Protein backbone atom coordinates (compact mmCIF):
# COMPACT_ATOMS: atom_id res chain seq x y z
CA UNK A 1 0.00 0.00 0.00
CA UNK A 2 3.02 2.25 -0.04
CA UNK A 3 4.01 4.67 -2.74
CA UNK A 4 1.78 6.17 -5.34
CA UNK A 5 1.44 3.32 -7.79
CA UNK A 6 1.67 5.72 -10.71
CA UNK A 7 -1.65 7.30 -9.78
CA UNK A 8 -1.16 11.05 -9.94
CA UNK A 9 -4.73 12.10 -9.07
CA UNK A 10 -4.78 14.31 -5.97
CA UNK A 11 -4.72 12.57 -2.58
CA UNK A 12 -6.83 15.36 -1.16
CA UNK A 13 -8.93 17.85 -3.04
CA UNK A 14 -10.73 20.56 -1.09
CA UNK A 15 -12.93 23.30 -2.55
CA UNK A 16 -14.32 26.41 -0.88
CA UNK A 17 -13.47 25.03 2.56
CA UNK A 18 -15.02 27.23 5.22
CA UNK A 19 -15.37 26.86 8.97
CA UNK A 20 -17.41 29.16 11.18
CA UNK A 21 -16.84 29.43 14.93
CA UNK A 22 -18.54 31.84 17.34
CA UNK A 23 -20.08 33.79 14.50
CA UNK A 24 -16.78 34.30 12.73
CA UNK A 25 -15.30 32.60 9.69
CA UNK A 26 -11.99 31.22 10.91
CA UNK A 27 -11.53 29.63 7.52
CA UNK A 28 -13.20 30.94 4.42
CA UNK A 29 -13.33 29.75 0.85
CA UNK A 30 -10.00 27.91 0.75
CA UNK A 31 -9.09 25.52 -2.07
CA UNK A 32 -6.40 22.94 -1.48
CA UNK A 33 -4.94 20.10 -3.56
CA UNK A 34 -2.30 17.68 -2.41
CA UNK A 35 -0.83 15.36 -5.00
CA UNK A 36 1.44 12.35 -4.51
CA UNK A 37 5.08 13.33 -4.07
CA UNK A 38 4.25 16.97 -3.46
CA UNK A 39 5.09 19.10 -0.42
CA UNK A 40 2.31 21.58 0.23
CA UNK A 41 3.06 24.09 2.95
CA UNK A 42 0.55 26.23 4.80
CA UNK A 43 2.02 29.39 6.29
CA UNK A 44 0.42 32.35 8.00
CA UNK A 45 0.33 34.22 11.28
CA UNK A 46 -0.99 32.75 14.54
CA UNK A 47 -4.74 32.22 14.49
CA UNK A 48 -4.81 32.20 10.70
CA UNK A 49 -6.64 28.87 10.59
CA UNK A 50 -3.68 26.74 9.54
CA UNK A 51 -4.40 23.81 11.85
CA UNK A 52 -8.11 24.10 11.10
CA UNK A 53 -7.43 23.77 7.37
CA UNK A 54 -5.28 20.69 7.96
CA UNK A 55 -7.97 19.14 10.17
CA UNK A 56 -10.65 19.81 7.55
CA UNK A 57 -8.42 18.23 4.91
CA UNK A 58 -8.01 15.18 7.16
CA UNK A 59 -11.73 14.94 7.89
CA UNK A 60 -11.31 15.71 11.62
CA UNK A 61 -13.51 18.79 11.28
CA UNK A 62 -16.52 18.93 8.99
CA UNK A 63 -16.50 22.16 6.95
CA UNK A 64 -19.50 24.46 7.35
CA UNK A 65 -19.28 25.18 3.65
CA UNK A 66 -17.39 23.57 0.80
CA UNK A 67 -16.34 19.96 0.37
CA UNK A 68 -13.25 17.84 0.61
CA UNK A 69 -12.56 14.66 -1.32
CA UNK A 70 -9.97 12.19 -0.16
CA UNK A 71 -8.72 9.39 -2.35
CA UNK A 72 -10.42 6.10 -1.43
CA UNK A 73 -8.48 4.12 1.19
CA UNK A 74 -6.04 6.97 1.70
CA UNK A 75 -3.48 6.05 4.36
CA UNK A 76 -2.39 8.94 6.54
CA UNK A 77 0.48 9.56 8.93
CA UNK A 78 -0.29 12.49 11.20
CA UNK A 79 1.93 14.51 13.52
CA UNK A 80 -0.41 16.81 15.48
CA UNK A 81 0.72 20.14 16.83
CA UNK A 82 0.80 18.96 20.41
CA UNK A 83 0.94 15.41 21.65
CA UNK A 84 1.47 14.67 25.29
CA UNK A 85 1.55 11.16 26.66
CA UNK A 86 0.14 11.10 30.20
CA UNK A 87 2.75 10.28 32.83
CA UNK A 88 0.55 7.43 34.07
CA UNK A 89 0.88 5.63 30.72
CA UNK A 90 4.11 3.62 30.47
CA UNK A 91 5.17 3.86 26.84
CA UNK A 92 8.51 3.31 25.19
CA UNK A 93 9.41 4.82 21.83
CA UNK A 94 9.26 1.34 20.31
CA UNK A 95 5.74 0.76 21.61
CA UNK A 96 4.55 4.18 20.43
CA UNK A 97 5.52 3.18 16.90
CA UNK A 98 2.76 0.54 16.94
CA UNK A 99 0.12 2.89 18.32
CA UNK A 100 -2.45 2.94 15.53
CA UNK A 101 -1.25 0.06 13.36
CA UNK A 102 0.86 -3.05 13.79
CA UNK A 103 4.45 -2.72 12.57
CA UNK A 104 7.30 -5.16 12.07
CA UNK A 105 10.44 -4.68 14.20
CA UNK A 106 12.53 -4.04 11.05
CA UNK A 107 10.11 -1.33 9.89
CA UNK A 108 10.24 0.33 13.32
CA UNK A 109 14.01 0.23 13.34
CA UNK A 110 14.21 1.65 9.82
CA UNK A 111 11.80 4.51 10.56
CA UNK A 112 13.63 5.47 13.76
CA UNK A 113 16.95 5.31 11.93
CA UNK A 114 15.59 7.48 9.14
CA UNK A 115 14.73 10.28 11.59
CA UNK A 116 17.95 9.76 13.53
CA UNK A 117 16.56 8.48 16.82
CA UNK A 118 17.22 4.73 16.60
CA UNK A 119 19.22 4.91 19.83
CA UNK A 120 16.07 5.99 21.73
CA UNK A 121 13.99 2.89 20.87
CA UNK A 122 13.83 1.64 24.45
CA UNK A 123 13.41 5.04 26.13
CA UNK A 124 10.15 6.05 27.82
CA UNK A 125 8.59 8.78 25.67
CA UNK A 126 8.08 11.06 28.68
CA UNK A 127 11.84 11.38 29.08
CA UNK A 128 12.57 12.69 25.58
CA UNK A 129 13.49 16.29 24.82
CA UNK A 130 11.20 18.34 22.58
CA UNK A 131 13.34 17.77 19.49
CA UNK A 132 13.76 14.06 20.15
CA UNK A 133 10.02 13.63 20.63
CA UNK A 134 9.29 15.44 17.34
CA UNK A 135 11.61 13.05 15.51
CA UNK A 136 9.97 10.08 17.21
CA UNK A 137 6.52 11.34 16.22
CA UNK A 138 7.71 11.79 12.65
CA UNK A 139 9.10 8.24 12.62
CA UNK A 140 5.81 6.97 14.03
CA UNK A 141 3.86 8.70 11.25
CA UNK A 142 6.25 7.21 8.68
CA UNK A 143 6.42 3.65 9.86
CA UNK A 144 3.36 2.43 7.96
CA UNK A 145 4.56 4.14 4.75
CA UNK A 146 1.49 6.37 4.43
CA UNK A 147 0.44 7.98 1.15
CA UNK A 148 -0.05 11.30 2.89
CA UNK A 149 2.05 12.76 5.69
CA UNK A 150 0.53 15.65 7.65
CA UNK A 151 2.85 17.64 9.92
CA UNK A 152 1.47 20.42 12.09
CA UNK A 153 4.30 22.74 13.21
CA UNK A 154 6.89 19.96 13.28
CA UNK A 155 9.73 22.22 14.47
CA UNK A 156 8.19 23.47 17.68
CA UNK A 157 10.62 23.18 20.58
CA UNK A 158 13.43 22.66 18.12
CA UNK A 159 16.31 25.10 17.70
CA UNK A 160 17.13 26.73 14.36
CA UNK A 161 19.79 24.24 13.32
CA UNK A 162 17.53 21.39 14.36
CA UNK A 163 14.66 22.91 12.38
CA UNK A 164 16.73 23.06 9.20
CA UNK A 165 17.82 19.47 9.68
CA UNK A 166 14.22 18.41 10.25
CA UNK A 167 13.00 20.12 7.06
CA UNK A 168 15.83 18.54 5.14
CA UNK A 169 14.69 15.25 6.55
CA UNK A 170 11.09 15.85 5.48
CA UNK A 171 12.16 16.66 1.92
CA UNK A 172 14.30 13.52 1.91
CA UNK A 173 11.37 11.44 3.12
CA UNK A 174 9.21 12.74 0.30
CA UNK A 175 11.93 11.88 -2.22
CA UNK A 176 12.40 8.35 -0.90
CA UNK A 177 8.77 7.41 -0.18
CA UNK A 178 6.98 9.42 -2.84
CA UNK A 179 4.29 10.40 -0.36
CA UNK A 180 2.39 13.66 -0.41
CA UNK A 181 3.23 16.02 2.46
CA UNK A 182 1.07 18.67 4.05
CA UNK A 183 3.21 20.88 6.25
CA UNK A 184 2.12 23.67 8.57
CA UNK A 185 4.56 26.26 9.77
CA UNK A 186 5.16 29.83 10.70
CA UNK A 187 8.85 29.20 10.29
CA UNK A 188 9.08 30.98 6.97
CA UNK A 189 12.68 30.92 5.88
CA UNK A 190 13.35 27.25 6.01
CA UNK A 191 9.90 26.22 4.85
CA UNK A 192 10.13 28.29 1.71
CA UNK A 193 13.14 26.36 0.56
CA UNK A 194 11.57 22.90 0.86
CA UNK A 195 8.00 23.47 -0.34
CA UNK A 196 6.68 22.75 -3.84
CA UNK A 197 3.57 24.77 -3.24
CA UNK A 198 2.85 27.36 -0.56
CA UNK A 199 -0.56 28.42 0.71
CA UNK A 200 -0.41 31.74 2.52
CA UNK A 201 -3.37 31.67 4.84
CA UNK A 202 -4.95 34.42 6.87
CA UNK A 203 -8.41 32.91 7.49
CA UNK A 204 -8.88 33.17 3.73
CA UNK A 205 -6.26 32.30 1.15
CA UNK A 206 -4.09 35.43 0.68
CA UNK A 207 -2.06 33.89 -2.06
CA UNK A 208 -0.85 30.53 -3.25
CA UNK A 209 1.84 29.33 -5.59
CA UNK A 210 5.51 28.45 -5.67
CA UNK A 211 7.63 29.70 -2.77
CA UNK A 212 9.02 32.47 -5.01
CA UNK A 213 5.60 33.65 -6.08
CA UNK A 214 4.33 33.81 -2.51
CA UNK A 215 7.46 35.52 -1.18
CA UNK A 216 7.07 38.28 -3.76
CA UNK A 217 3.37 38.74 -3.21
CA UNK A 218 2.40 42.07 -1.68
CA UNK A 219 0.31 40.46 1.11
CA UNK A 220 3.27 38.47 2.22
CA UNK A 221 5.61 41.42 2.07
CA UNK A 222 3.21 43.64 4.00
CA UNK A 223 2.90 41.06 6.79
CA UNK A 224 6.42 39.76 7.03
CA UNK A 225 8.49 42.31 5.12
CA UNK A 226 10.77 41.52 2.20
CA UNK A 227 13.13 38.72 2.99
CA UNK A 228 15.68 36.81 0.99
CA UNK A 229 14.73 33.31 -0.01
CA UNK A 230 17.61 31.46 1.48
CA UNK A 231 17.50 29.01 4.35
CA UNK A 232 20.78 30.16 5.84
CA UNK A 233 19.95 33.83 5.97
CA UNK A 234 19.85 35.45 9.37
CA UNK A 235 16.75 36.93 10.97
CA UNK A 236 14.62 34.33 12.71
CA UNK A 237 12.92 37.13 14.57
CA UNK A 238 9.87 37.51 12.36
CA UNK A 239 6.39 38.04 13.83
Amino acid sequence: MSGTGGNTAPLVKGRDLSVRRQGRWILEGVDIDISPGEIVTIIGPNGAGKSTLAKVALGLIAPDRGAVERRGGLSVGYVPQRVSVDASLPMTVERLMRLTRPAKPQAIEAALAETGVAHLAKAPVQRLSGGEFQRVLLARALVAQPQLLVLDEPVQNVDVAGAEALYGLIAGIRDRHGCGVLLISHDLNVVMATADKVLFLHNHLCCAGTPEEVANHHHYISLFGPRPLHPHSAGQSAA
Partner: protein
Amino acid sequence: MFDDFLIRALAAGIGTALIAGPLGCFVLWRRMAYFGDTMSHSALLGVGLGFLAGFAPALGVTLVTVAIAALLILLQRSRALPVDTLLGILSHGALSIGLVVVSLMSGLRIDLMAYLFGDVLSVSRGELAALWAGGAVIIATLLLIWRPLLAVTVDEDLARAEGIKAGLVRGLFMLLIALTIALSMRIVGILLITSLLIIPAAAARQVARSPEVMAIGAAIVGVAAAVLGLNGSFLFDTPSGPSIVVVALGLFVLLSLVRMLKHLRPPGRAD
Protein backbone atom coordinates in the same frame (compact mmCIF):
# COMPACT_ATOMS: atom_id res chain seq x y z
CA MET B 1 -16.88 -27.28 44.61
CA PHE B 2 -18.72 -23.97 44.41
CA ASP B 3 -20.99 -25.14 47.23
CA ASP B 4 -18.60 -23.71 49.73
CA PHE B 5 -19.38 -20.02 50.26
CA LEU B 6 -15.68 -19.41 50.88
CA ILE B 7 -14.70 -20.78 47.49
CA ARG B 8 -17.53 -18.82 45.86
CA ALA B 9 -16.33 -15.63 47.53
CA LEU B 10 -12.78 -16.21 46.30
CA ALA B 11 -13.98 -16.99 42.78
CA ALA B 12 -16.06 -13.80 42.78
CA GLY B 13 -13.22 -11.68 44.14
CA ILE B 14 -10.71 -13.07 41.63
CA GLY B 15 -13.17 -12.62 38.76
CA THR B 16 -13.79 -9.01 39.68
CA ALA B 17 -10.08 -8.27 40.00
CA LEU B 18 -9.32 -9.81 36.61
CA ILE B 19 -11.85 -7.49 34.92
CA ALA B 20 -11.20 -4.35 36.96
CA GLY B 21 -7.39 -4.37 36.67
CA PRO B 22 -6.96 -3.96 32.90
CA LEU B 23 -10.04 -1.75 32.55
CA GLY B 24 -8.82 0.37 35.45
CA CYS B 25 -5.57 1.11 33.59
CA PHE B 26 -7.59 3.00 30.99
CA VAL B 27 -9.50 4.80 33.76
CA LEU B 28 -6.10 5.95 35.01
CA TRP B 29 -4.65 6.86 31.59
CA ARG B 30 -7.77 8.72 30.56
CA ARG B 31 -7.97 10.50 33.93
CA MET B 32 -11.46 9.19 34.54
CA ALA B 33 -11.23 8.17 38.21
CA TYR B 34 -13.98 10.56 39.29
CA PHE B 35 -15.96 9.78 36.20
CA GLY B 36 -15.98 6.11 37.22
CA ASP B 37 -16.88 7.10 40.76
CA THR B 38 -19.86 9.08 39.52
CA MET B 39 -21.05 6.16 37.41
CA SER B 40 -20.77 3.70 40.28
CA HIS B 41 -22.53 6.02 42.72
CA SER B 42 -25.53 6.02 40.41
CA ALA B 43 -25.68 2.22 40.59
CA LEU B 44 -27.95 2.16 43.63
CA LEU B 45 -30.53 4.14 41.69
CA GLY B 46 -30.24 1.48 39.01
CA VAL B 47 -30.91 -1.25 41.57
CA GLY B 48 -34.02 0.56 42.82
CA LEU B 49 -35.39 1.35 39.38
CA GLY B 50 -34.59 -2.17 38.27
CA PHE B 51 -36.76 -3.58 41.07
CA LEU B 52 -39.56 -1.14 40.25
CA ALA B 53 -39.54 -2.06 36.57
CA GLY B 54 -39.01 -5.72 37.21
CA PHE B 55 -35.51 -5.86 35.69
CA ALA B 56 -32.62 -7.79 37.06
CA PRO B 57 -30.51 -5.41 39.21
CA ALA B 58 -27.53 -5.78 36.85
CA LEU B 59 -29.57 -4.57 33.87
CA GLY B 60 -31.00 -1.63 35.85
CA VAL B 61 -27.50 -0.66 36.96
CA THR B 62 -26.06 -0.87 33.45
CA LEU B 63 -28.83 1.30 32.02
CA VAL B 64 -28.63 3.95 34.75
CA THR B 65 -24.82 4.19 34.81
CA VAL B 66 -24.68 4.52 31.02
CA ALA B 67 -27.38 7.21 31.21
CA ILE B 68 -25.42 9.09 33.87
CA ALA B 69 -22.25 8.85 31.77
CA ALA B 70 -24.10 10.19 28.72
CA LEU B 71 -25.60 13.02 30.78
CA LEU B 72 -22.16 13.91 32.10
CA ILE B 73 -20.69 14.04 28.59
CA LEU B 74 -23.55 16.28 27.44
CA LEU B 75 -23.17 18.64 30.40
CA GLN B 76 -19.39 18.81 29.86
CA ARG B 77 -20.00 20.06 26.33
CA SER B 78 -21.98 23.06 27.57
CA ARG B 79 -18.98 24.14 29.66
CA ALA B 80 -21.20 26.19 31.96
CA LEU B 81 -19.69 24.57 35.07
CA PRO B 82 -16.26 23.10 35.79
CA VAL B 83 -16.01 19.35 35.29
CA ASP B 84 -15.24 18.57 38.94
CA THR B 85 -18.35 20.47 40.02
CA LEU B 86 -20.47 18.53 37.54
CA LEU B 87 -18.98 15.27 38.77
CA GLY B 88 -19.71 16.22 42.39
CA ILE B 89 -23.31 17.17 41.63
CA LEU B 90 -24.06 14.06 39.59
CA SER B 91 -22.18 11.69 41.87
CA HIS B 92 -23.74 12.72 45.16
CA GLY B 93 -27.07 13.57 43.56
CA ALA B 94 -27.37 10.12 42.01
CA LEU B 95 -26.30 8.39 45.22
CA SER B 96 -28.81 10.34 47.29
CA ILE B 97 -31.67 9.79 44.86
CA GLY B 98 -30.79 6.11 44.90
CA LEU B 99 -30.90 5.98 48.71
CA VAL B 100 -34.21 7.84 48.79
CA VAL B 101 -35.79 5.68 46.08
CA VAL B 102 -34.69 2.46 47.78
CA SER B 103 -35.99 3.58 51.18
CA LEU B 104 -39.33 4.63 49.67
CA MET B 105 -39.96 1.16 48.28
CA SER B 106 -41.47 -0.25 51.45
CA GLY B 107 -42.18 -3.67 50.00
CA LEU B 108 -38.56 -4.08 49.02
CA ARG B 109 -36.09 -5.52 51.47
CA ILE B 110 -32.68 -4.60 50.18
CA ASP B 111 -29.63 -5.11 52.29
CA LEU B 112 -28.36 -1.60 51.78
CA MET B 113 -24.99 -2.23 53.38
CA ALA B 114 -24.39 -5.11 51.00
CA TYR B 115 -24.84 -2.80 48.02
CA LEU B 116 -22.84 0.07 49.47
CA PHE B 117 -19.89 -1.92 50.80
CA GLY B 118 -20.28 -5.29 49.16
CA ASP B 119 -21.10 -8.67 50.63
CA VAL B 120 -19.05 -11.21 48.81
CA LEU B 121 -20.00 -13.95 51.27
CA SER B 122 -23.62 -13.93 50.12
CA VAL B 123 -22.81 -14.23 46.42
CA SER B 124 -25.00 -16.90 44.88
CA ARG B 125 -23.97 -19.44 42.28
CA GLY B 126 -26.08 -17.64 39.69
CA GLU B 127 -24.40 -14.33 40.41
CA LEU B 128 -21.01 -15.98 40.22
CA ALA B 129 -21.84 -17.47 36.83
CA ALA B 130 -23.05 -14.08 35.59
CA LEU B 131 -19.87 -12.43 36.85
CA TRP B 132 -17.54 -14.85 35.07
CA ALA B 133 -19.56 -14.98 31.84
CA GLY B 134 -19.94 -11.20 31.77
CA GLY B 135 -16.28 -10.82 32.71
CA ALA B 136 -15.24 -12.99 29.77
CA VAL B 137 -17.26 -10.77 27.42
CA ILE B 138 -15.75 -7.63 28.94
CA ILE B 139 -12.16 -8.88 28.62
CA ALA B 140 -12.75 -10.17 25.08
CA THR B 141 -14.17 -6.79 24.04
CA LEU B 142 -11.30 -4.94 25.70
CA LEU B 143 -8.78 -7.09 23.82
CA LEU B 144 -10.64 -6.38 20.58
CA ILE B 145 -10.56 -2.59 21.03
CA TRP B 146 -7.19 -2.48 22.82
CA ARG B 147 -5.13 -0.85 20.07
CA PRO B 148 -7.70 1.75 18.96
CA LEU B 149 -8.63 2.61 22.56
CA LEU B 150 -4.98 3.10 23.45
CA ALA B 151 -4.47 5.29 20.37
CA VAL B 152 -7.52 7.40 21.23
CA THR B 153 -6.19 7.70 24.79
CA VAL B 154 -2.84 9.04 23.58
CA ASP B 155 -4.29 11.50 21.06
CA GLU B 156 -7.79 11.47 19.67
CA ASP B 157 -7.09 13.60 16.58
CA LEU B 158 -4.11 11.48 15.67
CA ALA B 159 -6.14 8.29 16.05
CA ARG B 160 -9.02 9.64 13.96
CA ALA B 161 -6.73 10.99 11.25
CA GLU B 162 -5.24 7.51 10.88
CA GLY B 163 -8.62 5.86 10.48
CA ILE B 164 -9.76 4.92 14.00
CA LYS B 165 -13.44 5.34 14.86
CA ALA B 166 -12.87 7.21 18.12
CA GLY B 167 -16.51 7.75 19.08
CA LEU B 168 -17.37 4.07 18.75
CA VAL B 169 -14.32 2.99 20.72
CA ARG B 170 -14.98 5.48 23.54
CA GLY B 171 -18.65 4.47 23.71
CA LEU B 172 -17.73 0.80 23.98
CA PHE B 173 -15.26 1.58 26.74
CA MET B 174 -17.94 3.44 28.69
CA LEU B 175 -20.26 0.46 28.29
CA LEU B 176 -17.54 -1.87 29.61
CA ILE B 177 -17.16 0.27 32.73
CA ALA B 178 -20.92 0.25 33.28
CA LEU B 179 -21.02 -3.54 32.91
CA THR B 180 -18.10 -3.93 35.30
CA ILE B 181 -19.88 -1.84 37.92
CA ALA B 182 -23.09 -3.81 37.44
CA LEU B 183 -21.33 -7.17 37.79
CA SER B 184 -19.00 -6.34 40.64
CA MET B 185 -21.02 -4.08 42.94
CA ARG B 186 -22.02 -7.07 45.08
CA ILE B 187 -18.37 -7.93 45.65
CA VAL B 188 -16.84 -4.65 46.82
CA GLY B 189 -19.89 -2.38 46.97
CA ILE B 190 -20.67 0.68 44.87
CA LEU B 191 -18.72 3.01 47.16
CA LEU B 192 -15.50 1.06 46.67
CA ILE B 193 -15.68 -0.15 43.05
CA THR B 194 -13.57 2.74 41.78
CA SER B 195 -10.80 1.79 44.17
CA LEU B 196 -10.62 -1.66 42.57
CA LEU B 197 -10.35 0.04 39.19
CA ILE B 198 -7.60 2.50 40.05
CA ILE B 199 -5.53 1.18 42.97
CA PRO B 200 -4.26 -2.03 41.28
CA ALA B 201 -3.59 -0.03 38.08
CA ALA B 202 -1.70 2.65 40.00
CA ALA B 203 0.30 -0.05 41.82
CA ALA B 204 1.22 -1.74 38.53
CA ARG B 205 2.26 1.62 37.05
CA GLN B 206 5.10 1.78 39.57
CA VAL B 207 6.94 -1.10 37.93
CA ALA B 208 5.49 -1.47 34.40
CA ARG B 209 7.28 -0.25 31.28
CA SER B 210 4.56 -0.90 28.71
CA PRO B 211 0.78 -0.52 28.69
CA GLU B 212 0.29 -4.27 28.26
CA VAL B 213 2.53 -5.17 31.19
CA MET B 214 0.72 -2.60 33.32
CA ALA B 215 -2.67 -4.13 32.48
CA ILE B 216 -1.49 -7.65 33.36
CA GLY B 217 0.24 -6.32 36.48
CA ALA B 218 -2.97 -4.59 37.56
CA ALA B 219 -4.87 -7.87 37.19
CA ILE B 220 -2.23 -9.68 39.27
CA VAL B 221 -2.23 -7.02 42.01
CA GLY B 222 -6.04 -7.11 42.04
CA VAL B 223 -6.14 -10.91 42.33
CA ALA B 224 -3.57 -10.84 45.15
CA ALA B 225 -5.60 -8.17 46.94
CA ALA B 226 -8.79 -10.21 46.53
CA VAL B 227 -7.26 -13.45 47.81
CA LEU B 228 -5.37 -11.88 50.72
CA GLY B 229 -8.19 -9.48 51.56
CA LEU B 230 -10.83 -12.20 51.66
CA ASN B 231 -8.65 -14.47 53.77
CA GLY B 232 -8.02 -11.59 56.16
CA SER B 233 -11.72 -10.89 56.20
CA PHE B 234 -12.49 -14.47 57.28
CA LEU B 235 -9.66 -14.55 59.76
CA PHE B 236 -10.34 -11.25 61.52
CA ASP B 237 -14.06 -11.00 60.80
CA THR B 238 -13.70 -7.68 58.95
CA PRO B 239 -15.97 -6.51 56.08
CA SER B 240 -14.88 -8.14 52.83
CA GLY B 241 -14.92 -5.17 50.39
CA PRO B 242 -12.89 -2.80 52.56
CA SER B 243 -10.49 -5.64 53.44
CA ILE B 244 -9.72 -6.19 49.75
CA VAL B 245 -9.18 -2.46 49.24
CA VAL B 246 -6.87 -2.22 52.26
CA VAL B 247 -4.66 -5.00 50.88
CA ALA B 248 -4.65 -3.33 47.42
CA LEU B 249 -3.55 -0.11 49.09
CA GLY B 250 -0.78 -1.98 50.90
CA LEU B 251 0.45 -3.44 47.60
CA PHE B 252 0.38 0.03 46.05
CA VAL B 253 2.55 1.41 48.85
CA LEU B 254 4.90 -1.57 48.57
CA LEU B 255 5.38 -1.19 44.80
CA SER B 256 5.81 2.58 45.18
CA LEU B 257 8.65 1.89 47.61
CA VAL B 258 10.18 -0.56 45.14
CA ARG B 259 10.16 2.17 42.50
CA MET B 260 11.68 4.74 44.86
CA LEU B 261 14.48 2.33 45.77
CA LYS B 262 15.22 1.72 42.08
CA HIS B 263 15.57 5.47 41.55
CA LEU B 264 17.86 5.81 44.56
CA ARG B 265 20.44 3.54 42.96
CA PRO B 266 23.72 5.20 42.06
CA PRO B 267 23.68 6.82 38.61
CA GLY B 268 25.23 5.04 35.65
CA ARG B 269 22.73 2.24 35.45
CA ALA B 270 19.42 3.68 34.45
CA ASP B 271 16.73 1.12 35.21
